[in-house]
């Protein structure tokens, strides 16, 4: 059984088909790249997987569990974490607090425990903090020195890193990354490639939306290509690089317009 199975998923917004019978699978430990021109339905698929967008038809199975009837927090509880295309940080929370929110699902302090403060509450907070710091260590000296800074004071690239850090703090089995290098310079993008490789070493599977071909070719085990809501190709990076239809749909139009 694959970790993630997308079975003939369609999404329609009114008359517009954002996704048309898209099917593919992701195996445990794999990094699958998801590419396609703007408006191809990549983010819509992410929204379906994280239960923000209901599917019109088809099924989503995550290690055998149907995702399409769940709420976003329930999907997260299964071990699926995501980042967003545009940075969605908590502006008035510190870097550390973002990591602690990432630990939300692993904490059990409820209303009464918060008021009564039995000894285990402090232990739980300390554990969450430690786990957050371990996660931040993956980002070397980018975020650790800014532990107590508000997120809104971070640079653009650091906000994007923080979003990934927050997702990682939840210890997901599957990570959905939506254009992690968008707006980054080549040096910063190279750093994200290194980071993705480190994340794989933690045993986390990744579904990656990315426009930067260097990034996608560099880290993906397999690539799925969407165009106008349909899957037009799937294969190894070198196969996709040579695929005529992909070149036409993806590159052709982009260069044809210029």
């Amino acid at each position: 059984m694959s970790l993630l199975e997308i079975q003939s998923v369609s999404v329609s917004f009114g008359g517009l088909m954002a996704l048309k019978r898209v099917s593919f699978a992701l195996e445990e430990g794999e990094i699958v790249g998801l590419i396609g021109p703007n408006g191809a339905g990549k983010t819509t698929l992410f929204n379906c997987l994280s239960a923000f967008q209901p599917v019109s038809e088809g099924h989503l199975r995550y290690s055998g569990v149907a995702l399409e009837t769940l709420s976003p927090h329930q999907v997260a509880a299964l071990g699926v974490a995501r980042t967003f295309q545009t940075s969605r940080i908590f502006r008035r929370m510190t870097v550390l607090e973002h990591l602690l929110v990432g630990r939300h699902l692993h904490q059990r302090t409820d209303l009464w425990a918060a008021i009564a403060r039995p000894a285990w509450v402090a232990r739980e907070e300390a554990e969450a903090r430690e786990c957050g710091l371990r996660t931040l260590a993956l980002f070397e000296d980018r975020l650790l020195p800014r532990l107590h800074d508000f997120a809104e004071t971070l640079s653009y690239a650091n906000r994007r890193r923080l979003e990934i850090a927050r997702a990682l703090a939840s210890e997901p089995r599957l990570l959905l990354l939506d254009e992690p290098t968008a707006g980054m310079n080549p040096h910063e993008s190279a750093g994200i490639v290194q980071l993705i490789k480190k994340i794989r070493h933690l045993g986390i599977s990744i579904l990656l939306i990315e426009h930067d071909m260097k990034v996608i070719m560099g880290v993906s085990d397999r690539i799925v290509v969407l165009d106008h809501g349909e899957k037009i190709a799937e294969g190894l990076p070198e196969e996709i690089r040579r695929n005529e239809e992909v070149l036409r749909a993806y590159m052709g139009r982009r260069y044809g317009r210029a």
Partner: protein
Amino acid sequence: MLIPQLINGLTQGSLYALIAIGFVIIFGTMNLVTFAHGEVYMAGAFVGAFAMTLWHLPWFVALVMGMAAAWVLGFLIEKVAFRPLRTAGHMPPLLITIGLSIILKDLAVVLFGAENRPVPSIYEQTVRLAGVQVSVLQLVILGLAGSLFLVLRLLIQGTKIGRAMRATAQDHEAAYAMGVNVNRVFSIAFALASCLGGAAGVMIGIYYNAVYPTMGGTAGLKGFAACIFGGLTSIPGAILGGIIIGVVENLTVQFLASGYRDVVAFLVMVIVLVLRPQGLLGRKLRTV
């Protein structure tokens, strides 16, 4: 005469602060202003009054009952009136709260009558503290408000629930994706805010020996004003705002005339807000 009036103001102000904190919690979690908060406070006050007069229960049991009733009422209001409108923008929930406020007030008139309902007084004796006569009831109210502030601080400072509330307020989709059950957070925030309002209601009923259906109108307005005065999303700001309003009112009554109490209180607020539009402890809004 100054010190006793300061203590009167502090007592009343701490109750305004409890109401104001409710506005802060609801606005801070849901980005929503509720105009039914005063009526939740009134409902809590009535439950407390009934507990003492009809069932002859001690005041602290009445207090717990009033708080519990307000908690349930807040929980229900959020579920019935707000949850279906979560994606409808700012205006429809605002109108709903105005409607709810009218419904609850009229319901109270129909069920309990429009006239004042007496509430027995407690702790009528006074004690001498550092040369000043202070009523024991005022000390009880101050102690109670102070403990509620403390419990609230424990609840939301450095805990999972507090972070979940702040995260939900700042980006509820991102919080949702991180596993925060945002609907539950909204329920808890609304219930918690209502519960504090209910506590203020019960204590005001005891303090002034009366409850009545329209008591939530001015109290809600004062609480909302204190919340804006303090900076809209700051709990310490709301406490400070409530206390300043209470103190200014009482000093006005003493040194000017009782008819001017609201005028002067609101005048002070207007002046402060002109000089400091973000409120006492609020943060400056930045235009991006």
